[in-house]
């Protein structure tokens, strides 16, 4: 049994990080020049890490599958970034941000990591201002804040509805500087297809040039994965279509433990799927729930148009079930409530997948102008996508997979169970527990990339034995051979079904059995169906063209092949966790009024899964101790 050493420093929470940094070994400037670090992914975490490592003097090889590092999906984050600045003097503090994050994560994250995240959050804002990020300002010139995600303080910094874009462009500009200085070598349109391990250490990657199809090995002294989350395993999600699990899944197969894969966040306010051809779900800002009221008809199969349904026949289900929070209940709770009414056959719109988000009351009370001013751009977006005018008929919304709290297991130093393999941003599991709060993912990505990894990786590089290896090392050659063989295998099938067909089928399967609510029967049946689907994939998939050219279908099929394996891991984790916590809701474990029942006695641990070829993965447990915040039940009723 593998021992999971989280390497959490002892002592008081407030000084753990400071003392840890002091005890870390440093790499001398002369030696940094001789060390190469590979960073895969250029979202907030990857770009900030690559630029900072470059600045420190390491040589960085940075990879992304996009045409430019600026296109990573961090760019689509809208709301903002949290930081415990307490600029509003409304009682915020590092301690409170820490507490909110632990509680929001339903007590399934590490105290030490979360406290460190809250600590460095303030530095992130300063750094971003210095980089020229045009945060919203007050008339007096100070940074503006808003309240976000149901917390009681205003600690969210924002750039209109494009905070992720601006933060990413800031990190990208820092990266550009290091590229110009020659510290970072950028490899755009290059996709990681495997890791290279030498003597058990992560020493490089195998990558495919997506333009020429050329497969090459890149060796280094350490590898950093910043490759994001896996929401796209559900096929329809709010993620960009390129987001994939390949890098983290390949690492898992090489021995990196995968932690809490079943913690997948479903965001309540997306535009419902329209028809079978839909390729993506569009997120609507959560702020709509500030003024809109969610309802469905009281009776199933009530096909009257919403205006003809009198209020006596309407069920304002969030207000009914959660009178204290009403329409502002947290993401996981709201999403589940929507699912419950739709499962009862009371959903509205095509396929009964949707509930009304109605603004008519606020329009009546405050006037159309006010609503237009607040949400005009969102109403426009809704109109463009659905062709409906939300001023006339209520909006329809439906939950959508959005973010994955699970990811590769890392210790306090953000290193996985494979020495030399570091994992940052959404790709790791560390900070959000079972549910992520709004405006916290940007914070975590930048915390990892700018302020945590650059310290902790130094200690590894200073202390590990890292003999120099040539690019054509035997292990590298073998990894390349395997990658080429896999590509060849994909192309050789020449079947009749497309990768998208398999992906959609897998997504539907997971959404039904391992989505917003899960039960033993569904999960076991999914675990039976997935291998069959996978076999069909390898028998019937159609990938045209060759491996030695620009071949988007080949890229996609490779990613779908990994989803088809990864989905099993996801279901195993969901099946084993006999409790409901955060985003993970097991129908067997709920109270009489349908609220989740957490089981701290048996499940207050991180579930880290180890890969076993051809067998059920092995579960390792990292117990979670709550020394500073005693676990309480979340109640929003």
């Amino acid at each position, binding site marked *: 049994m593998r021992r999971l050493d989280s390497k959490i420093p002892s002592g008081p929470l407030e000084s753990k990080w400071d003392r840890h940094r002091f005890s870390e070994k440093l790499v001398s400037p002369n030696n940094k020049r001789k060390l190469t670090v590979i960073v895969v992914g250029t979202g907030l975490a990857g770009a900030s890490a690559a630029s900072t490592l470059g600045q420190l003097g390491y040589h960085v090889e940075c990879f992304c599958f996009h045409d430019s590092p600026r296109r990573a999906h961090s*760019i689509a984050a809208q709301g903002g970034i949290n930081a415990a600045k307490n600029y509003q003097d409304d009682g915020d503090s590092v301690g409170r941000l820490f507490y909110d994050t632990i509680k929001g994560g339903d007590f399934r994250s590490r105290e030490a990591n979360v406290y460190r995240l809250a600590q460095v959050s303030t530095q992130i804002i300063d750094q971003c201002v*210095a980089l020229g990020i045009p945060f919203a300002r007050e008339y007096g010139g100070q*940074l503006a804040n808003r309240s976000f995600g149901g917390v009681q303080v205003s600690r969210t910094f924002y750039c209109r509805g494009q905070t992720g874009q601006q933060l990413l462009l800031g990190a990208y500009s820092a990266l550009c500087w290091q590229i110009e200085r020659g510290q970072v070598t950028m490899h755009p349109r290059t996709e990681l297809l495997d890791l290279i391990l030498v003597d058990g250490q992560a020493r490089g990657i195998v990558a495919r040039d997506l333009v020429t199809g050329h497969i090459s090995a890149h060796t280094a002294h350490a590898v950093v994965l910043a490759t994001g989350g896996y929401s796209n395993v559900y096929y329809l999600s709010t993620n960009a279509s390129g987001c994939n699990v390949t890098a983290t899944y390949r690492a898992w197969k090489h021995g990196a433990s995968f932690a809490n894969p079943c913690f997948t966040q479903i965001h309540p306010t997306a535009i419902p799927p329209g028809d079978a051809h839909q390729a993506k779900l569009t997120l609507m800002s959560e702020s709509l729930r500030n003024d809109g009221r969610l309802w469905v008809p009281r009776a199933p199969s009530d096909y009257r148009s919403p205006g003809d349904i009198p209020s006596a026949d309407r069920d304002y289900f969030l207000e009914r079930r959660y009178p204290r929070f009403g329409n502002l209940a947290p993401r996981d709770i709201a999403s589940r409530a929507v699912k419950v009414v739709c499962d009862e056959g009371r959903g509205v719109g095509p396929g009964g997948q949707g509930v009304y988000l109605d603004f008519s009351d606020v329009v009546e009370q405050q006037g159309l102008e006010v609503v237009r001013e607040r949400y005009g751009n969102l109403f426009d977006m809704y109109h463009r996508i659905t062709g409906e005018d939300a001023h006339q008929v209520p909006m329809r919304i439906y939950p959508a997979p959005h973010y994955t709290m699970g990811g590769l297991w890392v210790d306090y130093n953000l290193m996985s169970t494979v020495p030399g393999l570091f994992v940052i941003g959404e790709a790791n599991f560390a900070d959000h527990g079972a549910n992520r709060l709004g405006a916290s993912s940007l914070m975590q990505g930048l915390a990892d990339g700018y*302020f945590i990894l650059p310290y902790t990786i130094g200690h590894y590089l200073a202390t590990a034995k890292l003999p120099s290896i040539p690019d054509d090392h035997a292990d590298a050659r073998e990894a390349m051979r395997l990658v080429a063989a896999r590509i060849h295998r994909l192309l050789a099938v020449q079947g009749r079904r497309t990768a998208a067909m398999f992906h959609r089928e897998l997504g539907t399967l997971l959404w039904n059995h391992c989505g917003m609510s899960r039960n033993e029967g569904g999960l076991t049946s999914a675990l039976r169906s997935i291998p069959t689907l996978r076999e069909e994939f390898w028998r019937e998939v159609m990938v045209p063209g060759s491996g030695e050219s620009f071949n988007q279908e080949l890229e996609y099929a490779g990613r779908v092949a990994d989803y088809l394996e990864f989905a099993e891991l996801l279901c195993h984790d969901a099946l084993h966790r006999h409790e409901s916590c955060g985003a993970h809701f097991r129908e067997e474990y709920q109270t009489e009024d349908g609220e989740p029942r957490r089981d701290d006695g048996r499940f207050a641990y991180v579930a880290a899964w180890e890969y076993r070829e051809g067998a059920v993965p092995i579960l390792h447990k990292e117990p979670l101790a709550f020394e500073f915040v005693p676990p309480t039940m979340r109640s929003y009723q």
Partner: protein
Amino acid sequence: MKFTLKIWRQNGPHERGQFVTYEANEVSPGMSFLEMLDGVNQRLLTQGEEPVAFEQDCREGICGSCSLVINGIPHGPDQGITTCQLYMRRFSDGARITIEPWRARAFPILKDLVVDRSALDRIMQAGGYISVNTGGAVDGNVLLIGKDQAETAMDAASCIGCGACVAACKNASAMLFVAAKVSHLATLPQGRPERASRVSAMLEAMDREGFGTCGNQSECEAVCPKSIPVRFIANLNREYLRAGIVESGLPSESQSPYAESS
């Protein structure tokens, strides 16, 4: 709905391309333009043919990947959106739609509708940043920045780097792209210390990449999915003129922005 699509197909940068006509059947008005193309590609795949290569990712108008010239207009007939935000109800049933890639010498075609826009990255690498190291930044509120100033910077900073400005410009000029970045950083006090060297370096890189010059026709502004106005190009010109005067050694460059506010 049904459509007849005339799509540019080209195997590689140095190969000859040509239009190929495809039929798109069973299109619903609620499909996005890219979903309509997905449908065409799925059909091609089941027939064992190579699908049409085009670029896309976020499908919500922010990543800047999608890049199609639809009936002669980059990002299609609607203003202020990207191709992925265009829906088929915008077209009349049975319409003929011509789809071409961005065309510019600086954006060589990689395959079909996919072009290489790395020239824009190289312009950014030439100076589109503020040279500050990670760590050691002063408190974010030390520097007071007026709301208007912050809003102007944000207007410019909202560029998604899609390259539609280049595609629409008669001269394939990247001036709006450069203007957006230069204006964003020159508007903010943090960007002031390097403003002269930045604008010169970025424009030099733009020339090197083979983009054309600005004809002040404002076509770029009209197709920009973020509606970035051409007044930022005037701002870029002024920055360049100013840089010329500064670099010739007449007045000295302003000190650190933090100096004046302390």
